[in-house]
């Protein structure tokens, strides 16, 4: 492989075309490492989903029995519903708040825009396990800082047992996720709006459009690709939710599995119950679910306005 380009070299101009094999050399590390640490685990997970394996004894082929089991598994359905509900519970207010902030920063001259952007984005960088534990410390127990604050303010019903109530716990996981992500979403949407031509706004204003009309009719359609990208990546991330509910509640997703996510369930099946085969099946089904749903979402959101290509 190395000799061939050398022999041709004197005839052609010395250009990047002649150095093709160097290209392979430069990109080779990616594919070597990706094959081992990226692709092999995927294939292995799929293989395992057709096997029974406890991590010690050799794996046994059991065909589609794990898949048959997952269809009747109420806990799996519950965990999937929990994951979707928690995601909706934070994605909708997250996008809502990000759009409100975008409108504010686009149409009003606010001092300290960069400061706010940085402050709102900070929670996104903090280790999720620390965030979960942090909010657990702030909330859990009758003497937690939040409860002390609520009692001092004379809120009726305080102190509140936050982690005894299913709806409340689920809402808190959504809230913590919102807290971690609204800043990120705002920064990305704001970046999307910088590509909008300012003269479009001026033209709209001259034509007598109000600020809200301009925002809905000009800004939103023009940043649609950014919104589609954000919605899909947020969904993919949200379906894999693991760290926050685990540290905010516990690894069972108490109370009553209210915040047991699919990732927590597959972790428990694998690394607590040593059903690695079944755990792999949960991974595969979730993967399929994510792929199908993001595909649909992409199509649906694109169809609305064919003018703007992603």
């Amino acid at each position, binding site marked *: 492989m190395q000799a061939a380009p050398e022999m041709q070299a004197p005839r052609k101009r010395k250009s990047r075309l002649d150095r093709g094999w160097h290209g392979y*050399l430069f990109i080779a590390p990616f594919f070597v*490492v990706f094959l081992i640490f990226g692709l092999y685990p*995927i294939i292995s997970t799929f293989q395992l989903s057709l096997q029974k394996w406890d991590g010690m004894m050799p794996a046994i082929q059991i065909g589609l029995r794990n898949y048959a089991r997952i269809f009747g598994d109420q806990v799996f359905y519950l965990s999937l519903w929990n994951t979707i509900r928690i995601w909706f519970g934070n994605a909708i207010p997250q996008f809502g708040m990000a759009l409100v902030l975008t409108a504010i920063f686009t149409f009003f001259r606010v001092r300290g825009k960069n400061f706010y952007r940085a402050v709102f984005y900070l929670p996104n*960088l903090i*280790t999720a396990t*620390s965030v979960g*534990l942090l909010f657990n*410390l702030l909330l859990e127990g009758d003497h937690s*800082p939040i409860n002390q604050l609520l009692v001092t303010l004379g809120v009726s019903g305080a102190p509140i047992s936050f982690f005894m109530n299913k709806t409340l716990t689920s809402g808190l996981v959504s809230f913590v996720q919102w807290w971690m992500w609204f800043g990120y979403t705002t920064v990305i949407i704001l970046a999307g709006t910088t590509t909008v031509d300012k003269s479009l706004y001026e033209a709209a204003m001259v034509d007598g459009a109000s600020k809200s009309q301009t925002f809905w009719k000009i800004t939103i359609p023009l940043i649609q690709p950014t919104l589609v990208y954000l919605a899909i990546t947020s969904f993919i991330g949200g379906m894999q939710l693991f760290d926050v509910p685990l540290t905010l509640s516990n690894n069972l997703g108490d109370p009553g599995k209210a915040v047991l996510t699919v990732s927590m369930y597959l972790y428990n099946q694998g690394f607590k119950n040593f059903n690695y085969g079944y755990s792999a099946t949960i991974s595969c089904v979730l993967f399929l679910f994510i792929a199908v749903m993001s595909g649909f979402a992409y199509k649906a959101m694109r169809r609305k306005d064919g003018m703007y290509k992603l």
Partner: protein
Amino acid sequence: MKPNKFRFSALTIRLLLIFLTVLCAVPFVVVFINSTHSSLDIIKQFNILPGDSLGENYQTMQSLVDIWRGFVNSVVITVPYTLLTGYFGAMIAYGFAKYRFRFKNVLYAIVLVSMMIPSQLSIIGFYRLCLNLKMTNSYLPFIIPGIANATTVFFLRGMIEQSISDSMIEAPRIEGCSEFGIFNRIVLPCIMPGVATMCIFNFVASWNAYMGPLIILQRKELYTMPVMISMIKGLYVTNYGAMYLAVAISVIPIMIVFAIFSRYIIDGLTTGSEK
């Protein structure tokens, strides 16, 4: 637009922004303040001023779990991982940006697809791989994948195509500089700002990684910071002061990184998304 209506909305805007700022900052402030109070103080009242129990909390914290051990372990994984993502990310991006070879588009499509794959879903296969390679209780499974960081490749390829002209490469080539030397001495220094930006993101991602280390590392003395943090609730029971201190210590490195590099981080985020 009526002037008084505008003034009202300006006030609303100001209040909303202040409210959100407080909401983002207060949890951290409470953690830092409570880490200096005794557990009794913490359950007795809502503390606004720092206390004087930092030393005691520190001793309690260290007597149960050696947090610094977790800190060092996280550094030992994160630093080499980050350097690998930067160096190899640039090299791979350069290969895709400036060379022509067969199957380039197919190979690049693989890079892009690998970016979309939810990696947490192949965690069981990853575990099995590490068992087969006898790499459980090793940091290598978290360091080596730094070589194949698709996002870094994607970001830097765009940067190289924009900022490195072909003549910048051909001139040293005629001088007899090796291809590898051209990359190391000319391309890499030119795209260093982009490499640094990606390194900051990769540093944070690696520092925060939880599920992988939780599964692969079985010996307690190898635990990384996030794994340790997730376990301390069971260990410290009602030593609230010590728990707050541990959370504070886990949060501080990222806050320092952000305080220094927030500009680059936000700019990197912004340019990355505009593509």
